[in-house]
């Protein structure tokens, strides 16, 4: 529902926004949830130091869907690891809600590309992994809720090796969401899936995001993916990586993949990455 429709039919404003595919409040109004300043990362290997990240500054706003896009091996994952607290930056700092990040935290869950789910636990047990401190009843109901949300009803007792790649990623998402984190970090979560499954999963992710309204940082090398998903697209250079630019993506949701504006946005990202438009 566009703003134009609201103007023409005021009665529509009685419809609650959450019933509609929501539009996020204007970007500038949202406060910054995560601040990364001066992030540098050097891997010391004796003779050949590897400079992975060079002077990265990043803001992520509350409730936004931010996508970092860049060539493979450019350091996006390293940046994610630093932001998530798995690695320490060589210099620089990361603050979330003004608190310094100095380690991994249950409030900021990472969804990995592959092998994130535990193969020795059922779908159910995986989703309940972080819920040990809830009462058994609460745990059960929360697991059921998220099983439903990600569309895995009927598979609660299946083992990861018995379900498809896309379903494994749903399990991981459910597991991440079940602990009600503040932020979700997704490290190329669909990278191991085929094109069609990826397409479907993107839609699912957005549906789930709308239901949960988390602040999301999403890493990918797939340009189309970044344009389809992001509120803001952060384009990174190759190693040593810095942020080349941040593109505001104000395409209305749901996003029409054949619209001219979509193609323009995509071409813009291509240009920023220095890629040719013809093959």
């Amino acid at each position, binding site marked *: 529902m566009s703003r134009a429709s609201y103007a023409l039919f005021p009665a529509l404003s009685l419809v609650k926004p959450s019933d509609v595919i929501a539009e996020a409040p204007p970007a500038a109004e949202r406060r910054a949830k995560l601040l990364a300043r001066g992030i540098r990362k050097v891997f010391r290997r004796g003779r050949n130091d590897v400079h992975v990240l060079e002077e990265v500054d990043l803001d992520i706003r509350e409730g936004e869907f931010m996508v970092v896009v860049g060539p493979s091996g450019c350091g996006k994952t390293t940046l994610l690891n630093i932001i*998530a607290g*798995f690695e320490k930056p060589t210099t620089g700092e990361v603050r979330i809600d003004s608190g310094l990040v100095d*380690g*991994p*935290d*249950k409030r*900021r*869950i*990472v969804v*990995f590309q*592959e*092998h*994130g789910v*535990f*193969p*020795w636990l059922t779908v159910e047990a995986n989703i309940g*992994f*972080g819920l040990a401190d809830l009462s058994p009843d609460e745990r059960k109901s929360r697991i059921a809720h998220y099983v439903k949300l990600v569309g895995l009803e009927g598979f609660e007792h299946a*083992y*990861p*090796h018995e379900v498809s790649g896309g379903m494994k990623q749903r399990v991981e998402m459910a597991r991440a969401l079940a*602990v009600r984190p503040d932020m979700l970090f997704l490290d190329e979560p669909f990278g191991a899936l085929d094109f069609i499954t990826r397409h479907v999963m993107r839609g699912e992710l957005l549906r789930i995001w709308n239901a949960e309204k988390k602040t999301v940082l999403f890493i990918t090398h797939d340009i189309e993916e970044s344009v389809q998903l992001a509120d803001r697209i952060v384009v990174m250079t190759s190693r040593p990586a810095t942020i080349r630019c941040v593109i505001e993506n104000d395409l209305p949701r749901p996003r029409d993949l054949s619209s001219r504006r979509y193609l323009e946005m995509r071409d813009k990202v291509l240009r920023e990455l220095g890629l040719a438009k013809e093959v």
Partner: protein
Amino acid sequence: MKPATSHRDRVTTFAAPAAVGALLVALWHVSVAYSGTRVFPSPAAVGAAVAELLRKGLLIPYTFDSLGRVMAGYGAAIAAGVPLGLIMGWHVGAASALNPVIQLLRPISPLAWMPVAVVLLGVGNAPAILLIGLGAFFPIVVAAMNAVASVREVHLRVARNFGLPPVKVLLHVMMPASLPQLLVGLRLALGIAWLVVVAAEMLAIDSGLGYLVVDSRNAGKRYDLVVAAMVSIGLIGFTLDIAMRFLARATAGRWSKAV
């Protein structure tokens, strides 16, 4: 189509080795007959010897003696080796400190420990069990270390992400993840333990299958009994290995393709 294939598979799995076995036995029989040896037993003589051992009530008790010692030494090696290996795999500092010690002691044949073992523990079962424990200990430590190394970093990161304290990471993630590889190592170590017990019995004990091998020769050049004992040793070792494979497959079924 399917039933026919699986039937054929079953035939080949059992019939083919049986055929090869029969062929080898035939070759054995022929070569004994051809060479006219008086001492080396023919297959038939070995069969008779096995029957004799059963009749005399030696085979079963000796087998259990050997198995008992194996289980004692193997159990001790697991109790000591698995935790140590897990720690060494987990903690890089412990690994770099203890690894040289392990590497130095590992090539020393368990049998070479015999004199020391006898001084420390006297004669009888105790030194044999120590030897078996030593023999199994090092492969178990190495297997546990490798099992920990084979745990995917992703799993550990997930565990830390969900705020699990180190102890819980160890128990709830590290251990289940390393179990399949650990079981492979434990199976190999059992095989080694079985080799050592026979050797230990040959050196210093007065019962068991290894003792039977030496005693049969020394007490009267009864090579038919020697080979009968060897065949028993082989079959029991084979059975132990199959049992461990079965155990590994049963517990690790879920990991099958995923890990």
